[in-house]
């Protein structure tokens, strides 16, 4: 264990951990909301995120982000943020419509919904990974080769954004990390307030507590569920945008590991609990990087899962407990 390094670099490490944890948190939001309302692990949410990263990438490419500077670049980035949010929202809604609604209507066992989610996840990831072939069917593979080429390897926007970095008290602070943390917290506050105060948000909470009563009180369950997926999708889009700013690279299977981690974060914080998702994401992000620093980066994922197990042992409903979901009978 490298304590000297760890304590010398603690602020910088923590900042990096918070930044990546913020991305976990934004993705976790989608898991936690859908779980809160439907008690369903939306396994395909990771792909919702992945499509967002590509929407961001393609928008930057299409608008010539590589050659842009200053205000023009900021405009392009804003456009790519909207594109990512739109793409993720659409995918989330399509998922709900195709893979879940038929099951919810028939009141199918919950486990089969998980299988449907897993299947949908495979389909979405593979469609992205085979986009060169799919484009070939409609004869567009040559025209779109910049976008559909490299279907199974990394796609990068490295060098497009040269974000400022400052050296503060010996540690390098990246403006992107600060932006990621700030945006994630801001977004969580917005969603939290929305769910608490707006009419739709109250509908979501009512449905989460008792779907039958909620529907008797005039809450449209289908619309509520759609809304839940929509919010989850939008936040995954934001996460995708921030992720691309930070990591600059994506791939058709990038969602899988992040999805598992984000779900872990959601459980860590208390699934169904929006604030829990934020806390869980940040704690997980920081724990991973501290673990990496102390034990070696090869133990990063092990640290994450061990932390999860330990926390669940002492707090069986996560750090903040469940709130959207039902209380125990």
């Amino acid at each position, binding site marked *: 264990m490298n304590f000297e390094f760890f304590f010398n670099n603690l602020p910088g490490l923590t900042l990096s951990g918070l930044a990546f944890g913020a991305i976990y948190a934004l993705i976790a939001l989608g898991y936690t909301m859908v779980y809160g309302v439907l008690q369903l692990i939306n396994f395909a949410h990771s792909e919702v995120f992945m499509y967002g990263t590509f929407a961001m990438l393609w928008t930057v490419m299409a608008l010539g982000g590589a050659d842009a500077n200053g205000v023009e670049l900021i405009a392009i980035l804003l456009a790519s943020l909207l594109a990512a949010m739109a793409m993720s929202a659409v995918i989330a809604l399509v998922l709900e419509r195709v893979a879940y609604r038929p099951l919810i209507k028939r009141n199918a066992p919950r486990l089969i919904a998980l299988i449907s989610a897993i299947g949908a996840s495979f389909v979405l990831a593979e469609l992205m990974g085979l986009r060169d072939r799919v484009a070939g069917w409609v004869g567009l593979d040559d025209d779109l080769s910049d976008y559909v080429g490299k279907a199974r390897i990394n796609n*990068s926007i*490295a060098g497009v954004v040269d974000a400022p970095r400052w050296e503060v008290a010996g540690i390098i602070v990246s403006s992107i990390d600060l932006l990621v943390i700030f945006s994630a917290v801001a977004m969580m506050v917005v969603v939290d307030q929305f769910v608490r105060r707006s009419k739709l948000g109250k509908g979501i909470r009512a449905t989460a507590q008792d779907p039958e009563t909620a529907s008797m009180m005039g809450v449209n369950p289908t619309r509520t569920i759609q809304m839940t997926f929509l919010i989850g999708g939008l936040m995954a889009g934001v996460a995708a945008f921030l992720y691309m700013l930070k*990591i600059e*690279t994506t791939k058709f299977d990038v969602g899988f590991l992040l999805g598992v981690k984000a779900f872990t974060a959601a459980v860590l914080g208390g699934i169904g609990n929006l604030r829990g998702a934020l806390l869980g994401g940040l704690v997980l992000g920081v724990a991973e990087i501290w673990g990496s*620093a102390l034990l070696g980066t090869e133990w990063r994922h092990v640290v994450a899962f061990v932390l999860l197990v330990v926390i669940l042992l002492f707090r069986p409903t996560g750090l903040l407990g469940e709130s959207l979901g039902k209380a125990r009978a």
Partner: protein
Amino acid sequence: MIRSSKSWQAVAVAAVAGLVLTACGTTEDGGDEGGSGGGGGEAACDLKLAFFGPETGPAAGLGKPIIQGAELAVSQYNEDADCEVELVNYDSQGSPDEAPALATEIAGDESIIGVVGPAFSGESAAAGPIFAEAGVPTVSPSATNPALSENGWDTFHRALGNDATQGPAAAAYIKDTLQAKSTYVIDDASEYGAGLAGIVEEDLGADAVAGSDTIQVGDTDFAATVSKVVDSEADAVFFGGYYAEATILIGQLRQGGFEGTFVVADGVKDPAYLDAGDAAEGTIITCPCIPDTDPAVADFASAYEEEFGEAPGTYAAEAYDAATIFLDGIGDGIGDREAMLEHVNGYDEAGITKQLSFDETGEPADVKVYAYKVEGGEIVSEGEIG
């Protein structure tokens, strides 16, 4: 029920027919013809080569240039051959799980007289005993685990230097040419990357190693590693791994304030690495492969680009070489595995990556390692290093 009574009839028929039985050779027609460039060969000669490696699955990105390299060799051969050779893809998905059943199938198809692959060391280890038992000569374009050649499989060969040949050259380059006083060694926990990094670390010696860390294939956030590198004040970083992680790692290293030299090996010698943009500039890539200043290599590169619309990726040239060894044998009239194995063992010709000949364990006899440098958005040769 119906089926079983039929088979009993068949037994009866067969018992009477008696002599007919010897006619039966194989029962399969050789599986899918996925993507092979040499389909539709003439009926008289049905010799086949197999590609064994990932065509789909998570490692498909690494498999693609290998398949294309082998395909290019076969289609070039078929252009002016009387007897066309078919390249059959056996898609292992890069997983050792799939390997035994696939290898057994290849072993059972006598018309397959050579295997380009297996692509990875894991599947090589799982399939190796089967190929050895069946006498199918294999030439791997990409499996670098040194232990593979120590199993006593006389059918095993590889068309590239193993980790133990490239590692010392890379270490020597870091010490002598770069004059780096302290080097941080990172690997990706893949057997290729970890094996290579381990040898580099050992060769550099404890005094010259500033520290080491291990990431995982598929990771994208390397903040902890970057922090360790910067903290160690190393003036060079060696990364054992593939281009996918290297591209992201170098970007984050540069952003984190690392200003030394980034040294990587052949797993990163891929056009996709250049995606890293300015961050990739100055990266040193060691590779046991001849630079394209050699006319034969340049021809290969342009033919490859013409055929597939992209520059040759990692191990495409090695795959081309591996296929060429077999194709030369078939051109000489070899028609069975035994003769092919003899041919491969005795082969000694100039390939596009190196002089192709094997020692008794199947390792390439003469491995020269070259250094390349990323300069102006291109990978240019720095000459031979060891």
